[in-house]
């Protein structure tokens, strides 16, 4: 399990950030999207290789009207 944007979610072993983002309906290059795991930013360059550890708290954010 992981916590994704505050919700408990199933997650497969070895799932990468890139895989998760795509599974959320955000195909590459997913412009305007950013990901943090346990409060640390995951750079885009690392999305393909960064595996999400079990129990991680994941935030997937995107551009929204504001300010």
């Amino acid at each position, binding site marked *: 399990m992981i916590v994704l944007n505050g919700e408990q979610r199933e997650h497969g072993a070895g799932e990468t950030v890139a895989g998760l983002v795509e599974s959320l*309906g955000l195909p590459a290059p997913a*412009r*305007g999207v*950013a990901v*943090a795991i346990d409060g640390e*930013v995951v750079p*885009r360059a690392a999305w393909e290789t960064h595996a999400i550890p079990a129990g991680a708290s994941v935030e997937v954010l*995107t551009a929204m*009207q504001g*300010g």
Partner: protein
Amino acid sequence: MASTHADAEPLRIAGRELNSRLLLGTGGFPSLDLLADSIRASGSELVTVALRRIELPDAQVGASGGASTNSGSRGALVDVLDAEGVEVLPNTAGCFTARDAVITAKLAREAFQTDWIKLEVIGDEDTLLPDAPELLKAAEQLVDDGFVVLPYTTDDPVLARRLVDIGCAAVMPLGAPIGSGMGIRNPYNIALIRESVQVPVVLDAGIGTASEAALAMELGCDAVMVASAVSRAQDPVAMAAAMRSAVVAGLLARGAGRIARKTYATPSTPVAGTPDFS
């Protein structure tokens, strides 16, 4: 003509030239179409966006379904801004601590591929006024990390100077609380800020209508940022056009040099040669 230098003089922030001195927030527009039309009417070249959690597809559905909202309404915001040819200025709206603001800024850098950040660190939910100590802390960390920091700050000239000393590329003092539409509550402080720092001053927050944007420029501000004043106006596109003209008018008036205020009248018509009908 008098307009040539004031009109043509671009705004420079951290080496970037902007021909429009109006920054537009994207918040509060009822539709993306109205946002696009308002951007065009405003002439703005720099617009703010926020970062928020994506909408999760229904947890039970799995990878294949229910994900359309992200590629739809929210994904479309970036596309609209691209189509209008404007630069994105991400903000840290909603952050109450330096830590959250710094993480949000770093996420924004990844999301939008820009080092520019409109830094907001809020200290109070009701007034949305900046939290000065947290703001300074966040600004320092972000400047050290290579960001071009534009802090949303109070109308305190000393705090503005501290932010500039840290290395902020501009300061964005408030005229009044965000979305309040109360205009510029302390014009003397805004003028003092302009005198006390060497970076661009962008009046941010509180503007309710065009005359207040003109006043900001007359006080010496280098640019004005508006969001709610346009997006929540009855006719946002018309208000965007009004703001565009107001900022130019205020800049021109500032350059022209206003007359001094006096209690008594000075006739504009010569007294000499007045006929006597007695």
